[in-house]
């Protein structure tokens, strides 16, 4: 639940500047990467940076979800649900 809320907060923050057609929707099946994704790379970078930032503020923890490896996986299908799982795994470590 905590991770979900953090992602929601990050989405609200980045949606603030995005035009209507490009807004990120909080829905577990929403595609972030992969063929079905409509997000451009800047939005993805911005979203992940904001999630890292929200985790730092709310959980007082530092995790890295955005690095060079991440960009190599951009062709894989990756949804909000996958993101929640990934963050939870990182937080447990």
């Amino acid at each position, binding site marked *: 639940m905590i991770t979900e809320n953090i992602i929601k907060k990050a989405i609200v*923050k980045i949606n603030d*500047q995005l035009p209507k057609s490009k807004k990120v929707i909080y829905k577990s099946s929403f595609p972030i990467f992969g063929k079905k994704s409509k997000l451009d790379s*800047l939005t993805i*970078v911005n979203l992940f940076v904001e999630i890292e930032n929200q985790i730092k503020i709310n959980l007082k923890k530092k995790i890295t979800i*955005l690095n060079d490896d991440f960009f190599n996986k951009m062709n894989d299908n990756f949804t909000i649900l996958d993101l929640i799982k990934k963050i939870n795994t990182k937080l447990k470590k």
Partner: protein
Amino acid sequence: MNKIKILSNFNSEIFSNYLNQKLNNREHKITKTVFGSFYQQSFKLIRSKEKIGTIIVWNQIEKILVNFDKLIYNKKFNYNELLKENNDYIKILKQLSKKCNQLIVFGWQKPNLYQGKSIKDFTDKLGVLKNVTKLNLQISDSIQDIENIYFFPPELYFNNATEEYSPKLWYAAKIPYSQNTFKSASEKINELFNNLKSKKVKLIILDLDNTLWGGEVGDIGWQKVKIGGHSIEGEAYVDFQRIIKGLKDTGIQLAICSKNDEKIALDAITKNKNMVLKKSDFVLWKINWEDKAKNIREIIKKLNFTNESVLFIDDNVNERDRVKTAISGIKVPDWPSDPTEYPSEILKLNCFETYKKITKEDKKRLGYYKDDLKRKKTKSDFVSELNWLKNLKTNILCKKITKENEDRIVQLINRTNQMNLRTRRYNQEKLQDIQKDKKSFLRCFHLKDKFGDMGIVGFFNLTKHKNKLIIDDFILSCRAFGRGVEKTMLHIISNYAVQKKIKLAEFNFKKTDKNKPCLTFLKENLKELKKNRFIIKDMKKSFKPNYLKLIKE
């Protein structure tokens, strides 16, 4: 549609998104250039013939000035070279300003990563903040005379930028600032556009009791009204009056509309020593018990203002509602009930051209209006308008454009709407460029009569082509309509054509929402070849009216 182009050395996507959100999409179209190519894109724009509505320049200092990059890394660098580099940047800004209506320049910001010389950063010669400030001042000093450049120092839009700086966003996407910074910068630009667009206030009409002072003078007498002294409200009224007086000194006119006994009310203004505003600061007053809307209509008519350029301030909500409903277009702001809020309230209104350069004419404007009221008062004493015009003993001075009158000419170019042939707006630099062109012929016109000096009221600029003269600007202040200046301007143009043995002088009228009076004048005095294209039919005809004296400098 205002075309906006963003020139930046960083990724301006988020900034452009916010800008799109803040500005009205129907009025503005934003395009951004490839980031990291500021110089290439600038030179491309400077060389192109395309005219852009607005150019926004926002760069990081360390990416543009090589010597600043050396400074932050403690490398050996040449201080004079740094200033020279900044100066070269300024030259580009100046050239860009000629390619657009507005150039918005974001000042240098302290680079996020470099904290400089810590607690000595502002005193050390190599301090980062010290040099950022110095270089920003160098830019602001160099562009202060260019009307269409708007310089935004970081203090105006930076909110805890260092705190919110994300190194990852920079390394991953070349975005150096936080969303909040871009949001705040976009809001400032939106404010600027709103300010440029809104009809500016030229006349403030003020109520008296509980507006200019506390209490009702009719009941308590001029000695006891709250103004100045050791009083919370009294001090606020003084500050409010000081702000109003400051606005008056920029050329805005003041009038009074108050339900009072005239003598008692004027006693408070003349006898109470704490009054900042004096009787002489007001061009006109209507102090009586009649309907305020009626009084205000009369004031506006006498002074020849449009409703949109008038601001009415009154503490009484019923009076405000009455005026707002009866006079369309007039600005009647909601007014706080607490006088301590008056000073900040008037500053919030954002409807004054306080950013414009104040010219000699602005300072004398109150006198011009007072003279004009006297002039108009005498008109009814004459049987015909011609007799009245003769009696005014008008002198028109035809002058060259000099350093002394350049500011006023630029003001006429950028403010005049009604008697304006093509409504071309441009700045001092462009005016100077036109003057340097040997094919150009420019003159301005100064009007004086027995009631006073009206200052420079008219201006034209023409270009000499092989067989004809093309009139590029033909501008006359509305204060001087119908006084013969416009015909005298034609007289000078036709004389010049004869002198240069040119048989054709062409006026290509460009219609706007407001310049119909100019079209009417052209139709009445020139020959219309085809729609909106006029020529002087007979060059030897004297256009100058006999009732005035022309003095050429």
